[in-house]
């Protein structure tokens, strides 16, 4: 019953008042950049041209359906050709199209202008199913993956306001600065999309695509991967935090020292409980395929780790498959390219000791380093 009422409400609102319907957006977002505003204006222009033409054509049709009914005594006329009319309705639409093409081409040329004058360059790499942001001139990079919990997705916990649009580490860019994105992929094709900037570009393995933006307003902007990229395509959001120039500089400095710390972690010897604690955090990246309790998704070809031959067998083989990827199953990527030695050592240790695997093996960063090819 409540569903029915709700539907009626939704339908009613749709036709009566779009103002009241602010919760659900109906139109394209104007976004925040000059380009996104241009795109929005272009969209609005063409939408209205279509609405006017549609009203004209359907209007004539409805008049005819109303007036020229047999039941009202209408007798069919006999015309079936008229060269003038036919030439006219070929040429007029053509002219309207030219009217649309000119502003469209202008906006396109503006969008596709090379971004050689950009002050910040970020390399975006798509992975199944997360983004890597590489601040090329500042010497650090990090992954950005979904922060929404599995409990929210599986309806075991209430859904947060930014459900599915929240990440652990957002991209950070400075306000009022031209930023260039170099977009590529490490596995399948993804598409990086920030609707409020009107930037959508495919991330393609073997290609480096270019896009740019200049955001005039501080804030957090959310989008999603737009190109089907496998099982968790719906779960790799794009979040961009636009900070003031000072905040941005502070953030860069903090990130740099964090990177230095991580490098130090790679060269020390870790205790078992440290490895397990860190490993559990890192394992968040593995849950999508191997499950929170190592149960995997066998039906979809993702093996369980709990009690598996690899996680309880020889350590070297386990390190090899995590660091260098599976030779038979491309879904198991080479995580050597994505994680630090310490992270890898921790997650392998965790997999070998969690869920009753209890091998007692502690893998050290040095072991991982040795296994890197």
């Amino acid at each position, binding site marked *: 019953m409540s*569903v029915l009422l709700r*539907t009626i409400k939704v*339908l009613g609102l749709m036709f009566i008042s779009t103002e009241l319907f602010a*919760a*659900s957006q*109906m*139109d394209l*977002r104007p976004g925040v950049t000059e380009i996104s505003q241009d*795109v929005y204006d272009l969209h609005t222009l063409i939408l209205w041209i*279509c609405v006017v033409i*549609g009203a004209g*054509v359907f209007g004539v*049709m409805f008049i*005819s*359906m109303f007036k*020229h*009914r*047999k*039941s009202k005594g*209408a*007798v*069919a006329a006999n*015309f*079936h050709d*008229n060269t003038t*009319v*036919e030439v006219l*309705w070929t040429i007029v*639409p053509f002219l309207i*199209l030219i009217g649309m*093409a000119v502003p*469209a*081409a202008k906006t396109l040329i503006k969008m*596709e202008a090379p971004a050689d004058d950009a002050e910040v360059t970020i390399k975006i790499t798509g992975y199944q199913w997360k983004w890597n942001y590489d601040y090329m001139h500042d010497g650090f990079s990090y992954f950005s993956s979904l922060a929404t919990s599995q409990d929210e*997705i*599986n*309806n075991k916990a209430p859904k947060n306001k930014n*459900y*599915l649009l929240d990440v652990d580490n957002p991209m950070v860019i400075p306000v009022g600065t031209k930023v260039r994105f170099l977009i590529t992929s490490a596995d*399948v094709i993804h598409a990086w*999309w920030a*609707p409020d900037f*009107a930037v*959508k570009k*495919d991330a393609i393995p*073997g*290609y480096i*695509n*270019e896009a740019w933006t200049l955001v005039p307003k501080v804030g957090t902007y959310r989008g*999603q991967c*737009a*190109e*089907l990229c496998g*099982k968790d*395509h719906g*779960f790799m959001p794009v979040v961009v935090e636009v900070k003031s120039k000072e905040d941005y500089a502070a953030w860069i400095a903090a990130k740099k020292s964090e990177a230095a710390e991580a490098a130090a972690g790679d060269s020390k010897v870790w205790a078992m409980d440290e490895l397990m604690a860190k490993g559990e955090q890192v394992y968040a990246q593995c849950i999508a395929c191997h499950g929170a309790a190592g149960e995997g998704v066998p*039906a*979809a*070809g993702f093996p369980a780790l709990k009690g598996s031959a690899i996680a309880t067998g020889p350590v070297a083989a386990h390190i090899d498959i995590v660091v260098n990827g599976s030779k038979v199953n*491309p879904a198991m990527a080479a995580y050597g390219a994505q994680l630090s030695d310490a992270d890898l050592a921790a997650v392998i240790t965790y997999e070998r000791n969690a869920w009753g695997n209890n091998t007692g093996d502690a893998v050290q960063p040095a072991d991982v380093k040795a296994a890197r090819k």
Partner: protein
Amino acid sequence: MSDDHHDHKPTGIGRWLFSTNHKDIGTMYLWFSFIMLFIGGGMAMIIRAELYQPGMQLIDPDFFNQMTTLHGLIMVFGVIMPAFVGFANWMVPMMIGAPDMALPRMNNMSFWLLPFAFGTLLSTLFMEGSAPNFGWTFYAPLSTTYGPPSTDYFIFGVHLMGISSIMGSINVIVTILNMRAPGMTLMKMPIFVWTWLITAFLLIAVMPVLAGVVTMMLTDRNFGTSFFEAAGGGDPVMFQHVFWFFGHPEVYIMILPSFGIISQIIPTFARKKLFGYSSMVYATASIAILSFIVWAHHMYTVGMPLAGELFFMLATMLIAVPTGVKVFNWVTTMWRGSLTFETPMLFAVAFVILFTIGGFSGLMMSITPVDFQYHDTYFIVAHFHYVLVTGALFAIFAGAYYWLPKWTGNMYNETLGKWHFWISVVSVNVLFFPMHFLGLAGMPRRIPDYALQFSDYNQMASIGGFVFGGIQLLFLYIVIKCIKGGEKASDQVWEGAEGLEFEQLPSPAPFHSFDTPPQVK
């Protein structure tokens, strides 16, 4: 000659297995398409049920991807195309005064490949790993390096469908060009025949391209080639170019025969000749030719050079001109006619309006800079469902109601037909119209779960979807009831119907018609 000789039919299962009769083969095509409509539609119901509210409720994301993939493949290759081939089989020989299709044994084979093709495709659902889960567009490398083992069965199925389509279209072309009754010049052919002739040429041109691209996938997957594998020097974007070089003409393959059906129906119920017959023919041909130079508008975001984006934008916009001509012609045909609104006409009128809405969103998407925002969102999903469901599928409904009396000799139940129409037309808009809003607001397509602000319209779409899906059972009932009996149809069936099939053949049309060709003035 006595009628019973005319109507001598083989009996038993052999009548269907070994059939060389265009009417029987047409019937099999149409039933095949109908069965596939319920299978593909069932998958759509699963998709809409999962999307009814945010969160994962019924299925897992990988199965969701299998559903969207198979739903698309089945609807395109298993429903729309076979239905049109079924119409062509039944109607083309009767409309041009031929006794049968020109190549009846090939006709049999092109039908009987289909159950095997789709049997192969559907069998992947029961295979270890996963059924194809990379979308009906099967972009590499998701479908090659990362595809499940069942992908090879999918490739084999696509090859079978391609062979079937190519043989079917050769048959249509040969029949139309060689077997027209004396006096029926090309420019006297019914528009449905014209649109199918052009469609058949498109099929012959592009099905081999599809076969080529899946073969490249096959060798990439199994024989160590790297056509689409960047690490081996290949190019994943080339896959998209080759696929859409097939794919764009393919979408016109699915709509041109609809234009033909609608152009037969509107004049009948307006009791007035089709306005601008020759411009209709030229417009159809222009659309077909343009379809070969617009493919990359499906892939504006791959990072093409500016010149490429501009070219494909302008070429795509041009398609609006001949399409507009067609719509104007239909409206002008109705203008000052003597209109009645039996079920076929209702579906035809809905086709003109709703297909045009799909055309408008298509025009919006042709504009490259704006398409960057629309691309891969629900706006696209709304667009192609408007042209394929309220376009192609509505034309199929219209054609079925229009010709069923000629095929069976019985009128369908008009009251039920109208119920079918009205419930369909309302629910289909509740289903697909909100998808425009979802896409504009930023919901990507092919996602099994979505952010909270998309909840209302998804729920609405799902409710529309369940009603639209359910009401098609009524259509099934109407068709079966019509085959079993009902008010007898006259030979002309409809007051305003013209053409050889209505003027010179009884209802139901005899098993063998036009053993001696009629004279066309």
